[in-house]
């Protein structure tokens, strides 16, 4: 038998070709549009799915091998961290609040990404993108679970973690990330992958993970650092998928350009609004700062994103038009957000505090054009008031943006002393927005955004009290009832860090670990 001689060795690309897209065939017993019913209605024209360039050519055997190796390393660190009470090695207990924000705000999105990528993977008739999307769906399950498993140990010892699943669905500020992802997954498959694969994963994810994870490492949180970096190693694959998707869609038909450009404009802005929470975390919540939000934005968006958009210029893609607004806001975003959360900390599942003098000096140095002029005086004033026993808690519910659902606290482009309000009328109702960008997003798809479940509206409509609550009863305390419905335990999960149970326990446990008491 001379079969051996005739056999040619396949290169990486050819091998991957027979291992993935060659598995597909053109069906004849059922119509394509019945098997793939979701790929027409967005107006994206794909003429030849075979032109798809595979980003990373990972077959399942290699995938299992490398991912299992990553998991083994990761869980060894998570176990050791728990066994050694690693949480007592973080710089100071305020740091733990960043982890709360992550579990309640980000981890549930990883879960949604798992389901969303399964959906678009099934929806695309092209075998190349299908395999990449399904692999990402599997990865996202990993991210969700490793985060839950790593943070589980924090939940045992600290407040603000215990009902994260419910909080993500119900709590006012968490509706910002939740509605972001609901928006993406309810869009068509092409928009979803541009939104998440490109705008979020490629353009913005470095801003979420790298500073957050470096911040964890810098603040002694090895558990978070381990899952963060481990997740990032998958992100590199996901980012590359995001970039390939854009190039593929644009190369298929010139008519796709305006649609894609609008999605990039929309989703860069939507994603950026969600990152408000990250900005505030970087500048205010990490006891040891790695870099400021502004610096991170400059490196990861202006520099890297700039290179990306110059590269895409050959397809006619331009920088998202919100970039200018964001460039203005970068001096203000984190400060305005933290001030707002300081006001509303009675209704949050994490603690807030006023920056101390050292921290304010750092903020002045990082934000020479804005901090001393606009924000330091506020902190000084609040500190003075608190010292007099007048700690200010805002109990009036804020107006929320109909699109991004962030309270209207952002200021006018060009005037950081004036809150930015926009509104529009639709079918006899008035809708409010934080910015021109959010207003424009609404106006393009009003039927979608009128559906939004706005937490403040819902509270006022009486939908956020425990069953059987009588709001007309004497002495009815709406905030208390809302917190009960949220299952945020008043006095434990919320309010100032100063005087919190977390602060007391951490101090006592650390003393037990380091001294003979």
């Amino acid at each position, binding site marked *: 038998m001379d079969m051996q001689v005739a056999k040619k060795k396949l290169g990486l690309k050819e091998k991957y070709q*027979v291992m993935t897209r060659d598995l597909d065939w053109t069906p004849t017993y059922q119509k394509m549009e019945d098997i793939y019913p979701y790929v027409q209605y967005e107006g994206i024209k794909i003429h030849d799915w075979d032109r798809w360039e595979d980003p990373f050519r990972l077959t399942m055997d290699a995938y299992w091998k490398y991912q299992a190796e990553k998991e083994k390393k990761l869980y060894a660190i998570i176990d050791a961290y728990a066994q050694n009470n690693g949480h007592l090695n973080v710089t100071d207990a305020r740091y733990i609040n960043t982890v709360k924000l992550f579990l309640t705000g980000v981890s549930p999105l990883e879960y949604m990404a798992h389901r969303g990528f399964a959906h678009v993977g099934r929806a695309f008739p092209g075998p190349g993108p299908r395999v990449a999307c399904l692999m990402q769906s599997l990865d996202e399950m990993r991210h969700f679970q490793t985060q839950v498993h790593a943070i589980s140990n924090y939940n*045992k*010892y600290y407040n603000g973690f215990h009902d994260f699943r419910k909080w993500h669905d119900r709590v006012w500020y968490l509706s910002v990330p939740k509605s972001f992802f609901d928006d993406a997954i309810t869009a068509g498959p092409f928009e979803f992958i541009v939104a998440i694969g490109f705008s979020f994963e490629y353009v913005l994810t470095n801003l979420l993970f790298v500073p957050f994870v470096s911040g964890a490492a810098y603040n002694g949180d090895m558990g978070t650092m381990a899952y963060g970096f481990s997740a990032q190693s998958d992100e590199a694959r996901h980012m590359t998928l995001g970039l390939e998707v854009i190039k593929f869609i644009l190369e298929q038909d010139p008519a796709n350009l305006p649609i894609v450009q609008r999605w990039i404009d929309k989703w860069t802005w939507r994603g950026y609004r969600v990152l408000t929470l990250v900005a505030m975390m970087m500048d205010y919540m990490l006891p040891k700062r790695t870099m400021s939000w502004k610096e991170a934005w400059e490196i990861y968006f202006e520099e890297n994103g700039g290179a990306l958009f110059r590269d895409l210029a050959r397809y006619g893609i331009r920088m998202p038009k919100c970039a200018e607004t964001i460039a203005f806001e970068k001096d203000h975003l984190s400060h305005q957000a933290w001030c707002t959360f300081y006001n509303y900390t009675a209704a949050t599942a994490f603690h807030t505090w006023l920056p101390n003098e050292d921290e304010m000096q750092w903020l002045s140095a990082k934000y020479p054009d804005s901090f001393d002029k606009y924000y330091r005086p506020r902190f000084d004033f609040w500190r003075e008031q608190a010292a007099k026993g007048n700690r200010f808690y805002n109990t009036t519910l804020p107006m929320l943006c109909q699109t991004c659902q962030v309270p209207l606290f952002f200021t006018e482009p060009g005037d950081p002393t004036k809150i930015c309000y926009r509104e529009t009328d639709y079918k006899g109702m008035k809708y409010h927005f934080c910015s021109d960008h959010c207003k424009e997003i609404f106006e393009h798809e009003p039927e979608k955004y009128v559906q939004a479940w706005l937490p403040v509206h819902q509270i006022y409509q009486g939908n956020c009290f425990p069953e059987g609550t009588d709001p007309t009863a004497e002495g009815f305390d709406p905030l208390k009832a809302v917190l009960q419905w949220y299952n945020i335990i008043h006095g434990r999960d919320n309010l100032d860090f100063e005087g919190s149970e977390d602060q007391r326990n951490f101090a006592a446990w650390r003393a037990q670990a380091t001294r003979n008491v």
Partner: protein
Amino acid sequence: MQIDLRTVTIKPLRQTFDHIARYLGTDKPVSRYLEGSLGIQPKDVFHYRPTWDPEHEIFDVRRTKIRMKDWDALKDPRQFYYGAYTSARARQQDTAEANFDFVESRGLVETLPEDVRQAAVALLVPLRHVAWGANMNNAAVCAYAYGGMTAQAAIYQSMDQLGIAQYLTRIGLLLGDVESLAAGKQAWTNDPVWQPLRRYVEDSFVVKDPFELHTVQNLVLDGLLYPLVYDTIIDQIFAARGGAAIAMLTQFMTQWSAETRKWVDATMKAIVAESEENRTVVQDWVDAWLPRAKEALLPVAAIAVSEQAPALLDEVMEGFAQRLAKIGLSA
């Protein structure tokens, strides 16, 4: 020697997350499987309806005819969370790699009787496409089923099937060459022998109910296909005809089907045990698809075992009927 290990003991405030404690009725430490799987899918407060399916919420019980009081009852007895899943598959792929190496390095393909080699290529190569269809169907189960338990296991099943399609491709390249893959695809799309099976697979692509799809693909089709092709034709008949090397190359599939059957049976059993209505719904699905699967597999088995095929298929059907009976269904 006595080792006195002193560590700092601090008392936890709680043992697990509230949604898990509420489900179990007690706050106690739970396995990583449960902690990463129970109640993970959002159930309410969806902001927008899918533009691709405006009749439903993002996750909606009305996508299926099955009714469950507790969707988390559809647990995976293998307790696969991502870490456990990849670790299990990495071990299996290690063995598979060693098996491929062994067959290749000892030149075992050259020692195969030519008729067995040809029959194996003719049988196994087109099955790449069946596995690819199963990858797609399980992606749909993951995307549209209600409940995190089912969705999670379905993405594992989906990617397992992609892995199987890739192992079958390697087997095709090892027992044949690139042209064998092309010939296999040609047979899959044109040869009358494969058309009933291809029709079954393509018809399953338009099934909308995710639990019907689970039944059609994971219970019925794979429930017959794997015992017939891998356990019977390859492990018994080919092995007896001097083709034991082929059984080494398909060991992954044999073990995999024995393992995943536990998940399929546990979920089907829980669904059927829930109510008489559920049982009737699933029984109707089985009644509609099982005869088609049987009919489709008969000519496929004949490729390898010619006139023995009907008897072998009857034997497999007998085993499958027993399996259905344990679930609470009938053949």
